[in-house]
């Protein structure tokens, strides 16, 4: 565990994070992400496939292959630079202070152990309690994630559960050690609407109860709206817009965010063409030296291709990386109460 943080310390702080993969092809996956998140905050991370959402989460958990990955910039959790963690401190950090829910339960749940054993094992490792006490925690967690007949389900193997139930078991596993930060990578994409909303409401409730921070990755804007206090939109390894959920959804400023919202099908009319953003994202073989979205942007002008776009602060925590906003916001907007 890291030392007790000073009051006011952000839960997560990225300072100009850059992640590059070396190998046959070099990939500049993260290109200068700066973001901070307060304890207990729920952040929705949106963005196109390949924009770096999963890499951001994996960086936080130190899950990237160390030999092939170059990481630059700061990543602090509760004030501790996580790049300095190793050995036992790293093991305690992973799954203890920070844990992750994956898109595919198969990645997190081991098919050869019962769900109860897996949760108890994690609790014993992190909290150093007896097997019996750990089993009690496991039972309590299954109850909290509202799995019916939890005593019986403790003895189930993962394949004996339905998809929705497995997803809940995985959330139980991730929350068993009361992490301060939960990373959820598209945890509901494979679920139908009725189960999805159950899981989202459950996460919202547990988040309030445990007071943990959550980073929730999704490409479904409706889902992001249901769970997030704040939304960050990624494009080509950078955060192009961030703000409260209301600001980003009702008053999107970055052309990519606008495109993403327009491509969403809520209220789309049958037979009419959908507004897909034309083109495809950049290859990321070189670090960006200009706005990465400019080649696909209907509003692009020469300035967009000359330098990296500045980050414009619109007030109230609403920030956007786009030259168009530079001219429009001469005076800072009043900060919302």
């Amino acid at each position, binding site marked *: 565990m890291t030392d007790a943080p000073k009051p006011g310390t952000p839960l997560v702080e990225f300072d100009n994070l850059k992640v590059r993969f070396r190998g046959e092809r070099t990939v500049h996956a993260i290109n200068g992400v700066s973001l901070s998140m307060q304890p207990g905050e729920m952040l929705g991370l949106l963005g196109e496939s390949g924009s770096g959402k999963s890499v951001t989460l994996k960086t936080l958990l130190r899950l990237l292959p160390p030999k092939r990955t170059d990481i630059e910039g700061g990543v602090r959790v509760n004030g501790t630079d996580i790049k300095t963690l190793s050995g036992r401190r790293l093991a305690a950090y992973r799954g203890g202070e920070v844990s992750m829910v994956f898109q595919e339960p198969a990645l997190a749940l081991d098919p050869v152990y019962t769900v109860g054993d897996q949760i108890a094992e994690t609790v014993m490792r992190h909290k150093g309690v007896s097997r019996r006490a750990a089993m009690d925690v496991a039972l309590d967690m299954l109850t909290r994630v509202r799995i019916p007949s939890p005593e019986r389900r403790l003895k189930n193997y993962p394949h004996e559960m339905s998809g929705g139930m497995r997803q809940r078991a995985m959330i139980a596993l991730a929350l068993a050690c009361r992490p301060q930060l939960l990373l959820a990578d598209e945890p509901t994409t*494979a*679920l139908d*609407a009725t189960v999805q*909303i159950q899981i989202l409401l459950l996460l919202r409730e547990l988040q309030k109860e445990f007071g943990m921070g959550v980073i929730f990755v999704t490409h479904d804007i409706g889902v992001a*709206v249901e769970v997030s206090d704040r939304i960050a939109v990624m494009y080509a390894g950078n955060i192009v817009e961030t703000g409260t959920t209301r600001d980003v959804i009702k008053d999107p400023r970055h052309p990519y965010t606008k495109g993403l919202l327009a491509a969403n*099908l*809520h209220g789309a009319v*049958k037979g009419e063409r959908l507004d*897909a953003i034309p083109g495809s994202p950049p290859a990321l073989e070189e670090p960006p030296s200009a706005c990465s979205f400019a080649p696909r942007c209907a509003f692009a002008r020469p300035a967009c291709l000359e330098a990296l776009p500045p980050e414009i602060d619109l007030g109230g925590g609403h920030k956007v990386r786009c030259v168009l906003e530079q001219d429009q916001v001469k005076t800072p907007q009043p900060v919302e109460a």
Partner: protein
Amino acid sequence: MSKTDPRSAKADRGGPNQPLIIAKDLKKHFPIRSGLFNRQSATVRAVDGVSFDVKKGETLGIVGESGCGKSTTARLLVGLIDLDEGHIVFDGDGLGEDISLKELRRGVQMVFQDSYASLNPRLTIVDSVAFGPKILGLGNPTGRARDLLGRVGLDPNRFADRYPHELSGGQRQRVNIARALAMEPRLVILDEAVSALDKSVEAQVLNLLNDLRREFGLTYVFISHDLNVVRYISDRVLVMYLGEVVEIGPADVIYENQAHPYTASLFAAMPSMDPDNLTEEPPLAGDPPNPIDPPSGCRFHTRCKFAEGVCSAKTPKLSVIGGDDTHQAACHMQEPGSGHSAAIKEAAE
């Protein structure tokens, strides 16, 4: 792509009013084996008496809870698994009577949920797409494949020679769509085919599907958990619950007016998109019942807030809703004389 290729099963044999495919009382039960002697201990009633038809040129959406039998229904339609009971009629020809399984497969292609498992890892994607047309002896398979890759948004100059592991999930799914289209099918079944795509690529692929439908007169069966997508793409929607059809009708009608309580819960579960108006309560609690031993009568009665005695005693039949015979639901509240307090007392004479 030529429309007059003599070898393609494209010939419109039944005429415009003949549905392209008719499914009659389809049943598929899977045996479950367990115990010391691996004896069959139970059966999963995955698809349990499903009937519907798909008209030429229309798109039929299929929705329903995870595990309700959507993919199994799709596999039956393509002939990937054998029917236990029921009939499939393709453009007027009965499967096993007038046409063989091979002929059916020629006319029906499927794009699967799992993009990775369905591509050969040793073939470049252009070869994967060209493979089917080559076997069928269609002209210029590679040119055709490159053209289709371009059409699904994968620039052939950049992507044609890549292997599946060099693509993202969304890109692989587009290869699968191109591969299905390369066979010049008349019916394409898309099983969660856009679920792995991000919204912008999804919009591109949906536009593409609409273009291809117009251009080649395709008919689609579209399975998805995303109700916004289903509404956009489908002319009619079929709702399944635990192996049965509970409601079917025109998409716009069902989206405005759900007749079956399960359908109503499903639609109420859609995320709101409005930060000032978040969902507070899940519209449907609990997990679906076990398909090995489904509830008696109406299978939804264990989770339905309108359930009465009749619901567990009698199986509801599909009945016409509001005088519009294109809209049907299987609910005792909609069936005159069923005995449910919300139903009309007697069938109007």
